[in-house]
């Protein structure tokens, strides 16, 4: 008994501060948030305790999920995530694949692709708001003007001002910023594949395509999975980019995180908390299978 305490005690004591802090400030607050989302705290008076707050179960969730505008936000989020994920993965992989060959000035290219990641979403958003100006024709500016100058007039469009697909234009700056990061991940993956494996494959008579399909790609799978998880959860939390390119009140670029902010500012804490829980569940759906997968492969 004493032995077990001696064995477990000090380590437990050492990690207990972080355990307690995380317990209170992360899980405790998640619990409070979940409780708030199941009350009818929709007005200012209720938030200060001057009006009674009642438990309403899942009513707020049904209201939210049943409302057109929240469905629009969820649809926007899904669209954005798909485009952002696909864009970063494709560009990240392409750049890594090109840089993996012996290139002159590889370091320079690597830096150029990685640099956008160092810019904050708010700062790049301000510039992209100018680039993604939705005027076309005589009054065009930004990218639309550029299209005119190079004779690609037909490419002019309203960017994020389309009510159905506008959100995908917001993914363009996001891809620009994060594709370099995915490139760095893939590049590390490429470099981690021993040269001997490729040589062995070549000696066995594999074509370049077979070499990639059968030797390189399988070894890149864990990297790709990590990239999907990192980019995917960033995508679900998108907020700052939309705040600086569009405005929170603009319907065409609404996502759940923006709804959460707006509900909070109108003292509708219950709906705001419910949106928070919905976002948490969506992120969990993405991340928990990954954690399970990692834990399993760790045990192997």
């Amino acid at each position, binding site marked *: 008994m004493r032995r077990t305490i*001696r064995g477990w*005690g*000090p380590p437990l*004591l*050492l990690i*207990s*501060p972080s355990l*307690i*802090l995380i317990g209170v400030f992360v899980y405790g607050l998640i619990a409070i948030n979940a409780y708030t989302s199941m009350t009818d705290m*929709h*007005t*200012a*008076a209720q*938030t*200060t305790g*001057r*009006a009674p707050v009642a438990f309403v179960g899942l009513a707020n969730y049904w209201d939210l999920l049943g409302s057109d*505008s929240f469905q*629009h936000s969820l649809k926007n989020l899904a669209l954005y995530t798909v485009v952002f994920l696909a864009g970063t993965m494709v560009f990240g992989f392409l750049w890594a694949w090109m840089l993996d060959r012996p290139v002159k000035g590889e370091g320079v290219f690597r830096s150029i692709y990685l640099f956008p990641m160092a810019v904050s979403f708010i700062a790049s958003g301000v510039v992209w*708001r100018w680039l*993604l*100006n*939705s*005027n*076309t024709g*005589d*009054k065009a500016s930004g990218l639309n003007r550029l299209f005119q100058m190079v004779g690609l007039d037909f490419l002019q469009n*309203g960017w*994020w*001002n389309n*009510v159905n697909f*506008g959100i995908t234009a917001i993914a363009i700056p996001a891809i620009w910023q994060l594709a370099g990061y995915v490139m760095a991940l893939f590049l590390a993956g490429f470099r981690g594949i021993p040269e001997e494996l490729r040589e062995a494959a070549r000696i066995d008579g594999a074509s370049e395509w077979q070499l990639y399909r059968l030797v390189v790609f399988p070894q890149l799978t864990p990297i790709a999975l990590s990239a999907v998880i990192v980019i995917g959860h960033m995508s679900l939390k998108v907020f700052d980019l939309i705040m600086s*390119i*569009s*405005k929170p*009140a*603009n*319907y*065409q670029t609404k996502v759940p995180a923006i709804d959460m902010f*707006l509900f909070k*500012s*109108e*003292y*509708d804490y219950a709906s705001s908390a419910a949106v928070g829980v919905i976002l948490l569940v969506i992120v969990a759906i993405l991340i928990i299978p990954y954690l399970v997968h990692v834990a399993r492969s760790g045990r192997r």
Partner: protein
Amino acid sequence: MEAQTIMRVHRRYAGVLAGIAVAGLTLMGCSSGDSGGGDTATESTSGSATDTAGAATEVEVFTWWTSGGEKAGLDGLVSVLAEKYPNVEFINGAVAGGAGSAAKDLLQSRLQANDPPDTFQAHAGAELDDYIAAGQVEDISDLYTEFGLTDAFPADLLDLLTVDGAIYSVPANIHRANVVWANPSVIEAAGLDPTATYATMADWFTALDAVQASGKTALSIATTWTQVQLLETVLISDLGPDAYNGLWLGETDWTGADVTAALEDFQKLMSYTNTDRDGLDWPDALGMVTSGDAAFNVMGDWAAGELDAESLTAGTDYIYFPVPGTDGIFDFLADSFTLPVGAPHPDGAKAWLDVVGSLEGQTAFNKAKGSIPARTDADPMEFNEYQQSAIKDFGSDTIVPSLMHGAAAPIAQLNAISDATSKFTTGGSDLATFQSELAASAG
């Protein structure tokens, strides 16, 4: 043996270390939790100690006036405060960003945490409802009697400020939201008479058509909130002041045919606007008029301050008139100051409210900010040309509350209307859906 003792000592040491670490973190947690309120706590103790001695106190004034004419106006108030109450030290609690939205967010958290400033800026009218319902602001009707404000403000305004027989704020100024700003040379180039005024929306449409045919943007507009402001002026124009007021009092039916007609006019107006509107803010849209890219812009009269700052002259560089169909109606909004419940320096706050309501304070503030005094006894000659005309109109016009600027409806209803408007103007809903969503916003 030796090694074992060392190990044991190490372990014990580790335990002690861990204990220290826990204590340290807890302390850090406490101190960081306190640091926000810490200085206010000491302020309030020192403040109350001196208050009782009847000596110097201070006042933390929370605003979103950080630049331009707004900052100059605030400075004007501060100089009057220094004259009238030399013992009251002014602490500037201004927060910049997002036309006040950043400040309102911070204010919301401070009030929720029972850490209010001594007084804060809020739009007079329904915007205060949330603070009143939450029990965060004091009834200051007594101060109105004490400072003699009851007769200084027009009766229309006092009616709009009174909630269940109580008044919770002192207005510092009056702005008008239903003003059209126009570029006379663009209008002339379109073959129109720049001195013409338009009695109805229909008359205005003819002019807008002519401008559009000349290749310019007929009506410039910016992001959602300016569209909501346009909507409110169209509602005033088409429904008239009584029915418009009825929208907020639950007496006018949102689903009625007259509202439908107004929304149709709004839809038509939006068809004359620039396509990049949602990415712009109001100075950009106003800039399209002054630079000659657009003919008309509907904006509140803070635009006059912006135009002044660009050294433009009324009459030659720009002209202004009430939104067609709203002549004789003053779509008002007012900045006002409150006395929060639990303000650390109530005496300082009262001194501030006295200054805000005083003739000297209102004159100094509004001369710089470009708005007009809420008091009826201000001398018009102290103000510029636009302000003089606004003072004259405010004295004679019917006063209606602005929706967009917090005078007419509480924030939840305003947000719902903003949502519906943005959805409609981006093509996410048709007119019938728009109208039903507006009706639903009234609850």
